[in-house]
């Protein structure tokens, strides 16, 4: 066993981990169950988290490689009761059905919008291309990200 020091949702943590653990294993064991397991092989994106500001498949990242890193999981997005605009937009646009792919999808959108405030539809599709969904057909998720982008722009302009 080893001790892993990293920051999760702004909180400095020291976690026990086995050298062979992935970031997904460690996060779920620590109670961050919003990080979902869908395939374990990086094909579905349900385990998406932000690692040092970049969206990654947590199931493909060896926990040891996250030593000293800053992680953002879905649990860290809302500010208490205040949802993030992306989360609000997903609800308003009907982009959540079973909700299993939602955390990963939202975080991929968060990564995109943190670096591109005016994404085209093509850029949105590319940003979530690694997040599979079987319920929605992606239509309302793409629209939700567009809505979130608009709302975040006007919030900034205010």
């Amino acid at each position, binding site marked *: 066993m080893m001790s892993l020091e990293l920051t999760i949702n702004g909180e400095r943590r020291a976690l026990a981990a086995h050298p062979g653990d992935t970031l997904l294993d460690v996060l779920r064991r620590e109670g961050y*169950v919003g990080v979902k397991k869908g395939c374990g092989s990086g094909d579905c994106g349900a385990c998406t988290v932000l690692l040092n500001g970049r969206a990654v498949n947590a199931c493909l990242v060896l926990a040891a490689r996250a030593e000293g890193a800053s992680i953002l999981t879905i649990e860290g997005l809302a500010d208490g009761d205040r949802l993030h605009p992306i989360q609000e937009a997903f609800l308003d646009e*009907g982009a959540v059905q*079973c*909700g299993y792919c939602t955390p990963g999808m939202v975080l991929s959108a968060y990564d995109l919008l943190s670096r591109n405030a005016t994404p085209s539809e093509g850029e949105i599709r590319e940003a979530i*291309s690694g997040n599979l969904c*079987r319920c929605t*057909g992606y239509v*309302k998720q793409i629209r939700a990200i567009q809505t979130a982008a608009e709302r975040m722009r006007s919030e900034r302009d205010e």
Partner: protein
Amino acid sequence: MSDRPREPFVVVGQSVRKVDGVGLVKGNPKFVADTDLSGALHVRILGSPHAHARILRMDVSAAEQIPGVVLILTHENTPPTRHTTAGQGYPEPSPYDARMFDTKVRFVGDRVAAVAAETEEAADEALRAIHVTYEELPAVLSIDDARAEGAPVIHDEKDSTGIYEAGRNIVADVDIDVGDVERGFAESDVVVETTCETQYAQHAPIETHVVHSYLDSDDRLVLRTSTQVPFHVRRIVAQTLGIPIRRIRVIKPRVGGGFGAKQEVLLEDIAGWITLKTGRPAFLSLSRAEEFVAARTRHPMRVRVKLGAKRDGVLHSIEMEATSNTGAYGAHGLTVLANTGSKTLPLYNKAQNARFYGQAVYTNLPVPGAYRGYGATQGYFPLETAMDELAERLGLDPVELRRRNHIRVGETSPIFEKLGEGREGVSQTVKSCELERCIAIGAERIGWREKRGTRRREGAWVHGVGMSIMMQGSGIPQIDMAAATIKMNEDGSFNLLVGATDIGTGSDTILAQIAAEVLGVPASRMIVTSSDTDLTPFDVGAYASSTTYVSGMAVQRAAEKVREQILSVAVPVLKAPAEGLRLVDEHVVGPGGARVSLAQVCQRAMYSSDQFQIAATASCVPSESPPPFLANFAEVAVDVETGVVKVVHYVAAVDCGVAINPLMAEGQMEGAIVNGIGYALSEEMLLSSTGRVRNPSLFDYKIPGALDVPDLDVILVGSYEPTGPMGAKSVGEIGINGPIPTIANAIYDAVGIRLRKTPFAPERVLAALQGEKVRKGER
């Protein structure tokens, strides 16, 4: 009997936010695996390496010695009870041909043993230490081989029941007819015939099957499971484990997608048995590979359709013959087969002669089960292809041919009565149908007249448009039952307890909307608890597009009863007769504007005067299954150099009655359509010559992603179904039936080839294109 509610609605018809939405979007612990699993035994299943073999000897001694291993299950220490895993109402129309662990294995991946251990690693080590001696048997890997003379018998056991003819591997046989199809064809001016084949496909829900079992403090077995059918789980687990139903509680938390895969009692028996034997909680979840191989799949089918029509385009004779590969076990075999005809043929009720016949056949291959569309998907492929061919032969626009033939309001079809879900159906008359408008709107939106036959070329891409129409059903008439309980709280809110199973479909939300509409409150005043067999009344579960129509009606009735009780309490307060009172905006309002709040009403009933709990339970058994109707139009582009097919624009105009929540109804359609596009273009489980799945991963089983979605237009064309809650029908399944035939017909328009085998993968399309060139003498 109260007045049937009609528009204008207050809550119904609004796209309110999902009642469980906030928790989902925050990633709150809502799914089976999101709980404290410390202390739970981890369970792994050993799958068979052979497609067909007898288990001669099992040696688990070495495995049992591995530290951390607690219990190993085999056929030697588990109940032998034959049952079906199909989540259907009792008595299930599927054969009792499954055992928890059998002495025989019937497909690669079939259960051989299970290990419960303290850790996953120990369980895996134990799996590899289990020694099994098999007697390999010849396997049958196709329908034709399975039915051939002298074929090995897959279910040769004495104690299975409900198999049509086990000695010939035939699970089910259906044959119904109306009139005389042969004479009908002879009388027809034009006859077309086509045979289509569909492939092995898997639902690929992003959350695989998972269950968590434990004993509560009263030693009752609790199963927290990702299921579509909690009450069937309870009953079938009781049967399989040999314990009374009252000892079991089934709870369905949030489910990460089902689509039919979870209309099955797949893992709960194993977990339940382990918990009973060890007293410990057990956790069992399928890996993604196991989800492909050892969960459930779509029924691959070969379906032949023959149509005879008169010169005026009206169908005179329809024949559909379906042969269904039902894999190693017969769950849903009969009913999917029957549905292939029962949800397709009534659409074209003008034909006086019709026949549907076919068989569901065992093979030593992965097990198909329920999958959105449930046979209709496989049936519409040849039916709508044949209609397209018929139109061409008659010199008619395909759209016009549909117009002349589809069922309309006030009409019936003899098929409704002859063919139901595995047995006779129920006669019914269509009371709502806006299919004509769906067709007109869809044709306009795609640009049918401008684009059809033009074969617009853009580099290597040739464009074409195609269309199809379809119907489905809303629940299983006279068989499905749903119930709802509503009880009132003294702040004017209500608990809505429903057996109905929200698997991401949003049923919790729309049922809350229906109740809220009756009670004159916002949907947020309804606190929904669903799918807990201890707390919620019965519901068959989420299948057959039944939740809105059947569960919704139960909710509406319960709400109406509660409304009457509320009014009865308000009468002495407002000093007005009940007939003059209305529920509006969280108040009881009398003539002249006198009002009392619902909170005050409940406080009175709870604490002050003639106290009683305002509450009611109501049930619904539908007497008919009003079909939703759908017109699909697609523009595709075919790359004639590579065979790649892209859907450019897809239009689906659907009549689902009143849409309780329009955004959610659209979402159901969009998801079903994109799933159907994958089924049409890229999804295929590949099987080796030994019956092994060659691509059990999302890496090589390609489902559509965000880069693959076309410009997708779903148009809700409203109608009012008088037998439905608030005028609603259903929308859950129908969308998935569209893409295959619509895309096939569009490909024909673009490049003149008829594809009759899915998926329309590039290599297959290119081969067809090149074959066509050779046929036409081009080089």
